[in-house]
């Protein structure tokens, strides 16, 4: 579910890549100071995007400075000032969504895997209790949408549109509630819906072979195996419509990095899963015919 909203690094300028990494490192420091050292393990690139997007839409000029890495004190890295409020927002979302993702995994996993997730949950519960006090509205929204998501997945004949909708609505909530002085609520809601849908569907596409094997819910499970290109087409449409939604929003700064993530990074993720799937099926075919790669 996490880590699908990332940059297409070769297309970034060095200064843009440096800024992106600085936001990531600052977020790591913020999560550590707000929740605790081990909470840093929950950090992901999706939260980095949210923090950077908040700075972009508010026109905040992030000031870079060199600091030592919070994990490896011998390593020097860039961090940024000016985005503390947005980093707190992204940190709260990270912890709350990680908590509900783990509870969801416990429900869908086999016995031993569920046991491992329960162990992880013991650590996260403490952070989650803190997050409930910091951001009660995010907590109640996440709880509502997770319940709605699992209710939807238990119904019959669910197509990808219906399956992705609860996550899309959670995305709408996240982007319509960002600390923002701009006046673009409808555009932000639509962008959030598109991004939430993308995150759900690409996760479903990535997990499809495992879900088929384990009998877990997946909106693409009834698509014929040779129709992988049809699933990719739906994802490409989602990615392109998300990019169109971004073009409706007025970003005051860092438009290039945000565009790189949304217009290039999303398609790159889809392509990499397709290539993996294709290479995997070629090697399966060769193995079956007795030849070795």
């Amino acid at each position, binding site marked *: 579910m996490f880590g699908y909203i990332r940059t297409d690094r070769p297309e970034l300028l060095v200064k843009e890549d440096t800024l992106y990494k600085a936001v990531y490192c600052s977020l790591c420091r913020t999560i550590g100071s707000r929740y605790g050292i081990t909470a840093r393990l929950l950090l992901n690139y999706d939260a980095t995007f949210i923090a950077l997007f908040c700075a972009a839409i508010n026109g905040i000029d992030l000031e870079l400075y060199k600091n030592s890495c919070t994990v490896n004190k011998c390593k020097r890295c860039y961090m940024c000032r000016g985005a503390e409020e947005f980093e707190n927002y992204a940190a709260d979302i990270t912890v709350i969504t990680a908590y509900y993702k783990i509870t969801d995994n416990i429900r869908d996993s086999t016995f031993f895997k569920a046991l491992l997730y329960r162990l992880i949950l013991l650590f996260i519960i403490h952070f989650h209790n803190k997050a409930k006090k910091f951001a009660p509205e995010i907590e109640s929204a996440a709880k509502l949408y997770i319940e709605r998501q699992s209710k939807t997945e238990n119904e019959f004949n669910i*197509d990808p549109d219906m399956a992705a909708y609860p996550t899309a609505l959670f995305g709408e909530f996240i982007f319509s509630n960002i600390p923002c002085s701009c006046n673009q609520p409808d555009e932000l809601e639509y962008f959030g819906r598109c991004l939430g849908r993308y995150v759900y569907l690409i996760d479903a596409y990535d997990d499809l072979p495992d879900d088929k094997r384990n009998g877990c819910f997946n909106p693409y499970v009834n698509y014929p195996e040779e129709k992988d290109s049809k699933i990719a087409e739906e994802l490409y449409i989602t990615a392109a419509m998300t990019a169109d939604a971004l073009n409706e929003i007025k970003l005051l700064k860092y438009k290039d990095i945000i565009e790189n993530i949304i*217009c290039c990074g999303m398609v790159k993720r889809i392509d990499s899963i397709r290539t993996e799937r294709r290479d995997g099926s070629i090697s399966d075919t060769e193995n079956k015919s007795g030849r070795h790669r």
Partner: protein
Amino acid sequence: MDPYLTLKISPDATDEQVRTAYRECMREFALKDEDELTEEDRIKMRNFDNAYDEIVAQRQSNGGYSGSRSVDYTEIRTQIRKNKLNEALDKLNSIPQQAKNGEWYYLQGLIHQRKGWFNAALENYAIAVRLDPSNQEYNQAYENMSNKRSGGYDTRSAERQSRSDRYDTCSCCDICKGLALANCICELCDGDENYCCCC
């Protein structure tokens, strides 16, 4: 052939059941690529389309809808523009089956698009285009979404595309050519035949 038999439903089926049956019949062809469709597939698809259109036309002519055929969709368009999607959808669903034309399907497609239901939006745009092939608005909406299927659609701003293209056109041959030219210029200026330090 009886259209109800073609779609494998009873004549007492509701409008929603007719629509669901049509979608079910077309689903297997929707999963195939354009060049994979055989002549037999195309004939079957045409039969399903004709059966659906015939049932809709029959119900329109027999229907008890006594109001004007031309429903005022302006208010629904205004609601969509103001992002009042649920109200617009309720208003749209209150229109009887007999009055559902290209505009109805186009607006439903638009609502689904704004909700993020892109698969349903594309289907609705396709039906709108089929019912009213000359309408530019419907064609544009359908093509705008359909063209994005391949993944090669570049949605970056024009400035960023041109910057990327500039770097893409600089190949090894360009670098060699540049160095050779610089060497010639340096020889002309310096007068000796050695390579100057800048090359």
